[in-house]
């Protein structure tokens, strides 16, 4: 906790000094909470938090589910079962996020319409679908490494006490694997939070989009983007803190 405090002190000091050196090149007034304009600007910027959080949480939940569904057949002893999973991972992993976002947002509705499913995809769901699919290739590999790190004897013992494949995964393998892969999964969550900034280019009103819009009206990119970065920092630090707590709780649970 004291380490967090030191970071805040340092950042606060930097901003304070920057604000004091008002020789005309800085314009902290745009986000000065003591003025009405500054307050309203800050409110506008911070108003993007909820959208970023929603986007990241839903995309992460989908990515983790999808990743598991891709990882499980990827470990089959039958190569024909393994193949689709392998192809999915290699293919999805190779697509850069931004082009994929454009393709999903502008292209996918056209494809769906031609298939007889006239759907509209708004910026919110377009971003979620893209982030979830793009990230699922990575979570799938994380699951695979976690599951394969559990000794084979665990599966054998579970099968000999009559558990099915699904029950073996659910009650024996995954509870042990999740503990081991929690840190890399948390990394992916943080990665998604940061990559959700791309949703701004298709018009999603999240943190980055709002900063961009304010820059256009205020012409103060340095100050506004600095605050934007700090907003992401706060978000990521909160996640890190939560993950530490979760790890401790799970670790304690295991050694009980």
């Amino acid at each position: 906790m004291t380490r967090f405090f030191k970071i805040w002190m340092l950042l606060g000091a930097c901003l304070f000094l920057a604000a004091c050196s008002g020789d005309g090149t800085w314009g902290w007034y745009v986000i000065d909470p003591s003025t009405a304009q500054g307050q309203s600007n800050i409110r506008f910027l911070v108003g993007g938090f909820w959208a970023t959080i929603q986007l990241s949480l839903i995309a992460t939940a989908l990515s983790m589910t999808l990743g598991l569904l891709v990882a499980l057949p990827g470990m089959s002893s039958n190569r024909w079962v393994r193949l689709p999973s392998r192809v999915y991972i290699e293919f999805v992993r190779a697509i850069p996020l931004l082009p994929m976002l454009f393709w999903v947002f502008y292209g996918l509705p056209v494809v769906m319409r031609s298939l007889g499913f006239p759907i509209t995809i708004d910026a919110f769901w377009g971003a979620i679908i893209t982030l979830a699919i793009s990230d699922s290739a990575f979570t799938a590999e994380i699951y695979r490494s976690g599951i394969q790190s559990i000794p084979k004897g665990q599966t054998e013992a579970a099968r000999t006490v009559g558990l099915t494949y699904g029950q073996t995964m659910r009650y024996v393998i995954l509870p042990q694997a999740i503990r081991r892969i929690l840190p890399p999964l948390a990394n992916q969550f943080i990665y998604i939070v940061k990559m959700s900034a791309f949703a701004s280019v298709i018009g999603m009103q999240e943190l980055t989009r709002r900063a961009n819009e304010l820059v256009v009206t205020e012409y103060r990119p340095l100050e506004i983007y600095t605050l934007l970065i700090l907003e992401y920092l706060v978000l990521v630090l909160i996640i890190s803190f939560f993950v530490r707590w979760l790890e401790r709780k799970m670790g304690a649970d295991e050694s009980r």
Partner: protein
Amino acid sequence: MNADRVIEIRSLNKSFGDFQVLRNVDLTVSLGERIVICGPSGSGKSTLIRCVNGLEQYDSGSITVDGISLSEPGGVDKVRAEVGMVFQQFNLFPHLSVIENLTLGPMKARGLSRKEAEALAMQYLERVKIPEQALKRPRELSGGQQQRVAIARSLCMKPKIMLFDEPTSALDPEMIAEVLDVMVELARDGMTMLVVTHEMGFARKVADRMVFMDGGEIVETGTPADVFEAPKTRRFKSFLDKILQH
């Protein structure tokens, strides 16, 4: 088919790549029979008993357990419901308590309620003489205790046949006796047992039949009294000489 024959293994062959681990193995086990399988490492003895409950697949031949063929659809699952197994490395579930290790199978595979499963589990923990460890995690137990938990976990599924794959090989010497005692008791209660072990004292005490394997084949079988007295083959004699030397 004779109802007494619970396991029938017919001309079983298996290879790992170029290496043939099992060559034309035939073995018939009657209900209540205790068989000790021994042989040098790499002789195929573990692979043989792992084939019996489908943990290893075989290339040719047939295995029938309690009238169920392993090769019939769903055969492996049906056979596993009849066959318990104890491993060299215990393979307890480290994230579950001792009692949860025991109740998992009965609850999920047999559909028992938690209460019923726990009553059953306690009954078997008493039998392996560690009911007081029920709420601990496996890692808090000694190796001997862990192996006894593993035996109790198998017994909770009420198997007709128990397979033991070198159950005492990973144990410190002072813990071997407590595990063997449990196994001797099990044998006295009439359990059908296939035991891969080098514990010749145990074999002498409980085995109805000794099976000696070498190079993937069954080289010699006989009652312990006969084989310890006068092994028929040179290979078995030299194996016994080696393990009984000290």
